[in-house]
């Protein structure tokens, strides 16, 4: 018997082993600095702005501050559209108001916690952050104004608390709040001239809840101390907060007004008095011809003018089909407090967006109206309110199929030389953000709809030589189809002769010595901003290794955007599906094929005129975004079903006519429709329907999962769906995470080779799904818990079940599934008070048996056998909060797999599967485990070198999708949600292409050296041989 080694030595060997393996594994996916930005690109999106603030300098500002419904406050360069900075706020931190203040920007944000921040104009970093403890915000109870004299801020939040803050330090100067249980909700603050006995007054405007309507309440506070002076209760009947406007004020010397709509009257109150003037709306608009056909009551349009101005808009829907808008600009006469019509904007078809600004150097107001009445163009109209005339009427190209109507506009005017220059920023319905400028080169647009990407379909490009439907291989358009063989041959011959002229250049490119010494490609600066609207599409071809693909994103806004995965994410085409299209699914039904372009099916749910659900399907050429017209009756470019959407998936049938894969659509009548519906397809479907099992309506928040089966009735040929099983979860549990196997998966090895050359056979059920449920508020005072179920989707049996207690209820649970592996993460609160809190990543591996070399005794796998997998599970502490999870996929599945995490710190992290191996030894590894190269148990490494996105801020990743390339080693990774980040990743290093480190120059030097040696030694050898002959 050999003496056992000393214990200290064993520990050392374990430690060494760990370090060694950690070192080898870390280098697997780390990036070299010069590669950054070469193989990847990153588009920084902010969402669609719905609020803008401008520093309003006379010379025009360098940047515009915007806030978006993605909870981002950003500064955009006015000339180029590039982001200067952005602050990505929490998901629950909505922006209530932004306001430029002495060059910086004040933001009011938050729902649960209310924050006032002064953000730096150059970096976006807060100078100060004011957050009153225990206070949140209410729907419309937030407002901000600044005092004229000292430039401090008056802040309102929760509709109840008014504070004065020092704008330099964020310190509170005074606070005033309503008594608890007060029926009044305040919505606005304004500084205006006072009344006898009170000179320096801040007015707080509120709506007091009455029986049928609200009434206006005005509270006057002393500006310096916050002392309550007087409360004015104004007799009024107001329906909603949008019917009230605060006008004027902004200084202790100016009159402040409140205007509101009360039934048929426009009423105006002079602040600081009880004096109200009222005008009958009918009389007011009786001289406006555009309002003759008024279809709905008039409403205010808030122009968001700076304080001190009393202009406002009254707008209404007109036109025979409720399809036009008319509006008048009014201004309050300071002498009698009555509103008068200043300008009639007239009637315009479609929606109008409005904005107003002060003409620099004057106190005059300019008002912008943006509208469209043409599919290709939109009109921007600027009116000078004082001169009562149009100063700018600009027709701009704006494709309706891409951008649709205006949703928001912001006007900026500045002086340049003698004249006044105009910049107009606007958002459109598809989500994009545009800028128009008098200076043509300063017009740009940002495709912000990509910030709302919810799904991606990745399309492989056709090979250059296959792209021959319209163009032959020589690049000639096929004009005459019926050519004789001789003519065809001659044409080919001439084209080849023509191609000869490229031969010298081709040879030179190889012979050019400089090409041998070129360094690795260098990252070039690029921007996500689109200059102008690009309508020309270059023919797209695949590159040598299939790394270039088209990424087709569907967005929550109803737009589809196709992006080049190479070329820094250039937008190839985009298409907006008209209002109310909820895009449910994108499916590639035909890959790029010999002579045929790839076809994309877009499945969207809309409503018809009677508010009934309709599923629409469009067939689109994936290379151009145009309708795919085949001319065949059974293959229309658009079709519809009068029912709601449940599911759509590809069937393993190809239709013989168009070579598209047959699409199966299940609607909420439990009816199946196939696309197309030709006779051979129906026959094929009938044959297939015997074994067609699927699940429907599995969604986050659900309380059960159900399986269904296709049924084809013999007599009527109706294709229906029949429920086969249901797994209801216990009371209180609801689904928080779902995972299915990836759409593309090849299992390279059937088993796992152990240290002694034995094999553990993988569980190869293709029909199992992972469901994680959570009980966030269990009874009996238990802490929240989650349960993981592995469910066979054919027969509905639970293959495996595990529960984790003391789980964070508010933290995201993520799950992914691939081959025989499941990985999920959750936040653990710990069992006892001394156990660590943190995220845990759990890895499950499914095997056919717990014994080595033992397999199920069957050649084929059947879901209907009773065998359950043997599951090995292990949990690992994980240091990162993650928002998305994905896994790499490669062509043949030989490369190792990396689990990809989208982190809340706005990075993408790749963890090798070896770290999430449940068989990692927890003690000292045995010889067999060492032989198998298992890494001893440890937490998941937290190393920034594992970040695929290095130091980039990839904001709010919601999904990570991977796609294989022609290189087995490499996979294309697409991360999206707000920002879009695309990179190539090789989990096992690029073993199948020459390493970038490979030095061509070294090779060349070696060859040159060898040649030199050859020439030196040749005469020597000849000499020697000669000598040998002599002697």
């Amino acid at each position: 018997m050999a003496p056992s080694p000393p214990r200290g030595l064993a520990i050392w060997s374990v430690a060494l082993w760990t370090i060694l393996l950690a070192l080898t594994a870390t280098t697997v996916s780390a990036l070299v600095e010069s590669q950054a930005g070469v193989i990847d690109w990153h588009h920084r999106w902010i969402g669609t702005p719905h609020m803008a603030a401008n520093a309003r300098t006379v010379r025009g500002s360098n940047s515009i501050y915007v806030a978006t419904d993605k909870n981002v406050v950003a500064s955009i360069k006015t000339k180029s559209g590039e982001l200067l900075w952005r602050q990505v706020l929490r998901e629950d931190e909505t922006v209530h108001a932004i306001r430029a203040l002495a060059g910086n920007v004040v933001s009011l944000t938050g729902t649960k916690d209310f924050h006032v921040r002064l953000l730096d104009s150059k970096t976006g970093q807060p100078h100060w952050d004011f957050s009153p403890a225990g206070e949140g915000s209410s729907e419309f109870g937030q407002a901000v104004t600044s005092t004229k004299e000292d430039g401090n801020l008056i802040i309102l939040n929760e509709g109840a608390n008014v504070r004065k803050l020092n704008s330099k330090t964020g310190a509170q100067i005074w606070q005033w709040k309503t008594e608890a249980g007060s029926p009044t909700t305040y919505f606005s603050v304004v500084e205006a001239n006072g009344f006898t006995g009170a000179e320096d007054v801040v007015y707080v405007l509120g709506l007091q809840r009455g029986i049928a309507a609200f009434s206006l309440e005005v509270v006057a506070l002393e500006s310096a101390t916050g002392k309550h002076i007087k409360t004015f209760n104004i007799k009024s009947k107001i329906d909603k907060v949008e019917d009230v406007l605060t006008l004027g004020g902004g200084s202790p010397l100016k009159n402040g007004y409140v205007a509101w709509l009360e039934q048929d009257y426009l009423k105006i109150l002079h602040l600081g008095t009880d004096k109200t003037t009222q005008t009958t709306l009918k009389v007011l608009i009786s001289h406006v011809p555009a309002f003759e056909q008024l279809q709905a009551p008039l409403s205010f349009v808030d122009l968001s003018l700076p304080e001190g101005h009393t202009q406002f808009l009254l707008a209404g829907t007109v036109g025979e089909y409720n399809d036009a808008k008319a509006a008048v600009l009014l201004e309050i006469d300071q002498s009698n407090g009555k509103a008068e019509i200043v300008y009639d904007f007239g009637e315009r078809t479609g929606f109008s967006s409005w904005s107003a600004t002060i003409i620099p150097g004057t106190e005059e107001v300019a008002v912008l109206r943006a509208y469209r009445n043409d599919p290709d163009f939109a009109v921007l109209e600027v009116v000078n309110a004082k001169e009562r005339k149009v100063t700018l009427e600009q027709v701009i190209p704006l494709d309706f199929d891409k951008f649709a109507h205006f949703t928001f506009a912001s006007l900026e005017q500045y002086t340049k030389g003698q004249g006044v220059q105009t910049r107009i920023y606007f958002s459109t319905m598809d989500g994009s953000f545009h800028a128009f400028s008098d200076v043509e080169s300063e017009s740009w647009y940002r495709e912000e709809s990509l910030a709302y990407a919810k799904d991606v379909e990745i399309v492989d490009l056709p090979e250059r030589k296959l792209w021959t439907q319209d163009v032959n291989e020589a690049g000639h358009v096929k004009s005459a189809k019926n050519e004789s063989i001789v003519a065809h041959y001659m044409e080919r011959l001439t084209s080849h002769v023509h191609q000869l002229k490229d031969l010298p250049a081709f040879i030179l490119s190889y012979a050019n010595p400089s090409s041998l010494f070129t360094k690795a490609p260098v990252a070039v600066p690029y921007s996500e901003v689109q200059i102008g609207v690009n309508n020309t599409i270059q023919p797209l071809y695949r590159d040598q290794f299939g790394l270039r693909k088209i990424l087709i994103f569907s967005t929550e806004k109803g737009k589809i955007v196709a992006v080049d995965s190479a070329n820094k994410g250039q937008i190839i085409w985009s298409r907006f599906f008209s209002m109310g299209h909820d895009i449910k699914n994108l499916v590639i039904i035909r890959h790029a094929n010999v002579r045929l372009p790839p076809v994309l099916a877009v499945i969207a749910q809309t409503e018809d005129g009677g508010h009934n659900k309709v599923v629409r399907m469009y067939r689109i050429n994936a290379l151009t975004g145009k309708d795919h017209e085949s001319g065949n009756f059974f293959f229309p470019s658009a079709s519809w079903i009068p029912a709601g959407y449940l599911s759509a998936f590809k069937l393993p049938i190809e239709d013989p006519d168009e070579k598209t894969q047959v699409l199966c659509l299940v609607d909420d009548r439990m009816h199946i429709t196939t696309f197309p519906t030709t006779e051979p397809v129906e026959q094929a479907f009938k044959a297939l329907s015997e074994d067609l099992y699927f699940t429907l309506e599995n969604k986050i928040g659900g309380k059960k999962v159900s399986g269904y089966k296709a049924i084809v009735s013999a007599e009527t040929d109706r294709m229906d769906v029949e429920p086969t099983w249901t797994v209801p979860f216990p009371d209180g549990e609801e689904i928080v995470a779902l995972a299915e196997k990836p759409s593309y998966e090849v299992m390279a090895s059937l088993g796992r080779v152990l240290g002694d050359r034995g094999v553990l056979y993988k569980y190869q059920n293709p029909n199992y799904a992972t469901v994680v449920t959570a009980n966030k508020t269990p009874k009996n005072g238990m802490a929240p818990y989650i349960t993981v179920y592995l469910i066979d989707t054919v027969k509905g049996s639970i293959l495996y079940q595990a529960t984790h207690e003391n789980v964070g209820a508010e933290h995201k649970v993520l799950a992914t599934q691939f081959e025989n592996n499941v990985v999920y993460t959750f936040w653990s609160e710990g069992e006892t008070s001394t156990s660590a809190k943190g995220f845990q990543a759990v890895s499950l591996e499914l095997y056919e048996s717990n014994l080595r070399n033992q397999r199920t005794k069957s050649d084929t796998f059947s879901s209907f056998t009773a065998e359950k997998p043997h599951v090995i599970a292990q949990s690992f502490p994980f240091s990162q909060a993650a928002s998305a999870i994905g896994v790499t996929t490669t062509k043949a599945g030989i490369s190792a797999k990396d689990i990809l995490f989208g982190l809340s710190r706005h990075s993408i992290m790749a963890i090798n599967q070896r770290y999430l191996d449940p068989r990692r030894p927890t003690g000292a590894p045995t010889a067999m485990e060492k032989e198998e190269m298992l890494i001893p148990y440890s937490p998941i490494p937290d190393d920034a070198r594992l970040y695929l996105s290095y130091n980039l801020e990839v904001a709010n990743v919601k999904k990570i999708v991977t796609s294989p390339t022609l290189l087995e080693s490499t996979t294309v990774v697409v991360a999206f949600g707000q920002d879009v980040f695309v990179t190539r990743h090789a989990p096992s290093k690029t073993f199948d292409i020459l390493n970038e480190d490979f030095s061509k120059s070294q090779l060349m030097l070696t060859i040159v050296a060898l040649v030199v040696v050859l020439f030196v030694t040749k005469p020597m050898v000849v000499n020697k041989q000669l000598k040998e002959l002599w002697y």
Partner: protein
Amino acid sequence: MKSIFLRPIAALTVAVVALLSLSSVSAADLSGYLVGFGENAHPRELSPQTRVLLSGGQYSSMINKDGKFIFTNVPEGTYLLEVQSPQYNYPTVKVTLAGKETKANLVSLGFDWSNNDNPLQFPLTLVPRAPTTFFIPREGFKISSLFANPMMLMMGASVLMLFVMPKLMANMDAEQMEEMQGMQDDMQMPSFEMPDISATLAKFSTGGASSSSSPQVTSGKKRQ
């Protein structure tokens, strides 16, 4: 070790204020400061993207220009405080909020929280451990590395031999020469262990009856 984390900042006031909120669960404010890396680091140099998280993101805070972060109205309990910085690696901290007795200890991943070593003082001041490294260094082309290459070394040695060998040979006497020749002949002798395919086939076809005889014959032949 301790002194790194307890570097005093004179101007800071006591930052943890316990407040009783309206509800029965008492809640407190937690605040602290981040410091940049190096001797003369100014918090202004910290990235505006930096966030401080409590409990894995349940609460989060931006940092102000002076490096200050604040969480308001946090219920009493034990929390994990982390810093997400694109520039530096900060330590993780266990924070126990209990009325006026707020404690903070350094913790690391994978260890439980039973021991209260490495306490931090208030106001909480977090000093980065190191700048974050995202990249691995690349080894560039160097002439020295070219000559350190084993192939190059082998080649150099063989070229050297080419010049040196004839001189050595010339100095050798005839006896040594013969001996060397013999050695070379020996080296060219085929190995006896080489499997004989024909023999194996014969063995296979005859069922292995006369297995031992034929290899002996062939080997005998070769010995001659």
